[in-house]
């Protein structure tokens, strides 16, 4: 199979890239390859909204303030020109999506409504009740169908193939048949989403957010950037870790400890519940650590998110999905009772290193979306900035990929890699499993949450890293595929996803140990302060053929604002 532009991933980033690509040049073959049906992609789970300084609610808002809030929120690790680009594109791309049919919630005067969100100085978050991602994903999908984008649904990408200089294609399994193929492409866009599933059981993410593209990039010798930065969202449901959107606090929800105190007054006296996520998550964990949390019969510790004072009407109109989730997954109606919540692993700031044009160091290979790290989120992403990032950079990637494909031919080679992958799969299929995949995944989640969680320190991390290494070794020795059929083999797929998770967890752990400071989402008890002198850099990691890591320091663009202390 051959396609001019091959986009891997059908979330917001992949679909926007596809749309831009077909609109840019109708004569090219543009295909989207995705392991799940496009509208299942995790973008659909995004609830709260998307940021753009439209100034519809607060006329004093503008792109510059959005830029500054994002940089401050990032704890000064974001690349400032890149942030500026994103924030100035924001109003345009929101309006473009409005004209594609996204059903934004509206103000009385008919303009797009905006709500307050954590870490933002103005009411800037555009929304569609609490189903922003869902309506974006479906709208973009419909527009892709309209424009004739080709979909390769339920194909699983295994590896990225290049010749050291330029893209050759990707290897992928057609899940329905089990056949492994080399799909040649002039340009490839990796839009494979995040990897928070390394915190299995402690994450808001869908089962498939396993960082496949990021792990494949690492195997292909591409650098991963800022992998130690993974954000914990303050409000996951107690039992399932399913997300309760920041919109709940944006609309006026209160966080309360077991004494009934709005404890955020101690940690962020001004912004209270609307402090940035890293700060609110740490505050919750601090309350729990100091014994002011709740504990249920199964030993789960949590605090309360209280919406009861908002009243039935507001909850039903603005937060209907959150109410449905609380009822379905906690058995609690937020109109009547507070919701039990705890922090949940949520968003990967780190990912495949690219520049502002979404280029990786290999020609013809691009990345966009949560899988990518430009970086516009630095050490901590603000709520509502990811949906923005994925469409802004999806758009860029689509155009750049077309530009490259127009000027080049298909590259030769890659047969070796295909053979290798087929052999690897056959081996896995023939191996008897000595351990249970489900148990091993849980073990990974436990290790990561305990040792690389909201609070970290050297001792905990070293212990955790040893456990992780042991798990990785056991997985490679003991894990095989039990389902022996070729047709729709999800056992094989889950096993491959698990190997990807292990690879990512390894990088994350390694990168965490190198950073001896606290910045944004990355917090160490033993180094509680930010240290710009020694650590104001992007960590860049590549993997050597022997499995060891190369660690380099990438420059941070601080050309617009001098790093300052963050206060909320």
């Amino acid at each position, binding site marked *: 199979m051959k396609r001019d532009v091959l986009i891997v991933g059908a979330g917001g980033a992949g679909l926007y890239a596809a749309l831009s690509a077909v609109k840019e040049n109708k004569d090219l073959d543009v295909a989207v390859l995705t392991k799940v049906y496009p509208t299942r992609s995790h973008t659909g789970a995004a609830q709260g909204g998307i940021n753009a300084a439209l100034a519809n609610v607060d006329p004093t808002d503008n792109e510059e303030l959005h830029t500054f809030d994002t940089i401050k929120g990032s704890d000064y690790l974001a690349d400032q020109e890149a942030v500026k680009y994103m924030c100035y594109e924001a109003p345009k791309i929101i309006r473009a999506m409005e*004209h*594609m049919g996204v*059903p934004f919630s509206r103000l009385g005067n*008919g303009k797009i409504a905006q709500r307050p969100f954590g870490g933002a100085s103005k009411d800037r978050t555009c929304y569609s009740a609490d189903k922003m991602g869902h309506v974006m994903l*479906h709208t973009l999908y419909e527009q892709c169908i309209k424009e004739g984008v080709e979909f390769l*649904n339920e194909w699983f990408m295994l590896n990225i193939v290049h010749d050291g200089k330029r893209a050759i294609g990707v290897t992928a399994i057609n899940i329905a048949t089990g056949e492994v193929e080399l799909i040649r492409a002039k340009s490839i866009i990796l839009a494979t989403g995040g990897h928070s599933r390394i915190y299995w059981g402690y994450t808001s993410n869908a*089962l*498939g957010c396993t960082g496949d593209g990021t792990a494949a990039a690492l195997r292909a010798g591409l650098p991963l950037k800022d992998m130690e930065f993974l954000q914990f969202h303050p409000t996951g449901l107690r039992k399932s870790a399913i997300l309760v959107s920041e919109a709940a606090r944006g609309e006026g929800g209160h966080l309360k400890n077991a004494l009934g105190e709005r404890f955020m007054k101690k940690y962020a006296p001004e912004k209270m519940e609307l402090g940035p996520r890293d700060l609110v998550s740490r505050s919750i964990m601090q309350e729990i650590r100091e014994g002011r949390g709740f504990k249920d019969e199964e030993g789960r510790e949590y605090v309360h998110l209280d919406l009861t004072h908002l009243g039935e009407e507001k909850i039903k109109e603005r937060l209907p999905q959150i109410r449905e*989730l609380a009822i379905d997954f906690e058995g609690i109606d937020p109109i009547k009772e507070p919701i039990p919540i705890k922090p949940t692993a949520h968003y990967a700031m780190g990912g495949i290193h690219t520049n502002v044009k979404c280029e990786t160091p290999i020609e013809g290979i691009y990345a966009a979306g949560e899988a990518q790290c430009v970086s516009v989120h630095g050490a901590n992403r603000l709520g509502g900035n990811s949906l923005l990032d994925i469409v802004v950079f999806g758009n860029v990637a689509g155009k750049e990929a077309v530009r490259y494909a127009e000027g080049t031919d298909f590259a030769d080679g890659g047969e070796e890699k295909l053979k290798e992958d087929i052999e690897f799969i056959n081996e896995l299929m023939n191996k008897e499993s000595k351990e249970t995949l489900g148990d091993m995944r849980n073990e990974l989640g436990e290790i990561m949450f305990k040792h690389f969680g909201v609070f970290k320190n050297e001792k905990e991390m070293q212990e955790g890293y040893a456990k992780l290494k042991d798990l990785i070794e056991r997985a490679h020795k003991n894990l095989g595929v*039990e389902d022996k059929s070729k047709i729709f083999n999800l056992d094989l797929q889950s096993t491959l996803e698990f190997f990807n998770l292990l690879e990512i967890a390894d990088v994350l752990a390694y990168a965490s140990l190198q950073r001896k400071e606290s910045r944004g989402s990355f917090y160490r008890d033993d180094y509680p302060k930010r240290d710009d002198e020694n650590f104001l850099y992007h960590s860049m990691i590549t993997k050597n053929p022997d499995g060891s890591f190369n660690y380099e320091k990438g420059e941070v663009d601080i050309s617009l604002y001098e790093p300052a202390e963050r206060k909320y």
Partner: protein
Amino acid sequence: MKLKIKRFLNNKSYFDEYEVDFRDDETILELLDRIRDKDRSLTYRSFCRSSICGTCTIKANNKTILACKSKVKDFIENDELVIEPVDKAKVIKDLVVDNSFLEEKIKKVNGWFVDEIDVTKENLQTPEELKKYDKQTDCILCGACFYECDALEYDKNFAGPFAFTKVYRFVFDSRDKMDKQQRIEIAKENLLYNCINCQKCAIVCPKGISSMMDIKMLQMKDKNPPFSDSFNFF
């Protein structure tokens, strides 16, 4: 409890039977996950596990449901739970069915918004105007309505409940620039009037959408109904 799961591979189908306990708040998806930990060849789709992605549609004691949203305790009858793939779609393996009809039907009814892109200003729309079609945008393409629809028993060319809900969503969206009657004519080519009001779509929809009502509203808006003399609304 006795749990029966219908299996299918290479044209062979059979039931696996298990004796299992279940937690009071356990979802059917969680129960299936437990079984799969023991038999990893058991195949079903799941993704978000929070009823927003529409992946996990199956049948439990003959009702079409989202496995992740449905509690075991709400579906067992006589201490038995029978899990099967949904109807009206080709089974690929175990509980996994072919869902290519989704894209196909959206294409057939022109299920997309039509407008010129203008990055300098947005369309205006009041909250009241949004309300007219807001509910319909909740559809997660889970297909439950399609798998249950009686009209499809008679004619496979019926676009299906969710597809008409999409048409409704555009016809009643004040911003959409395609001619409303033209949208309705396309819906008619896809057998808008074949709905037999069985209500099944409304009953199964996990998002509380009534495609039946949407179809009725489209029929009422039709300026050129096929049998205007004899047709009686409601």
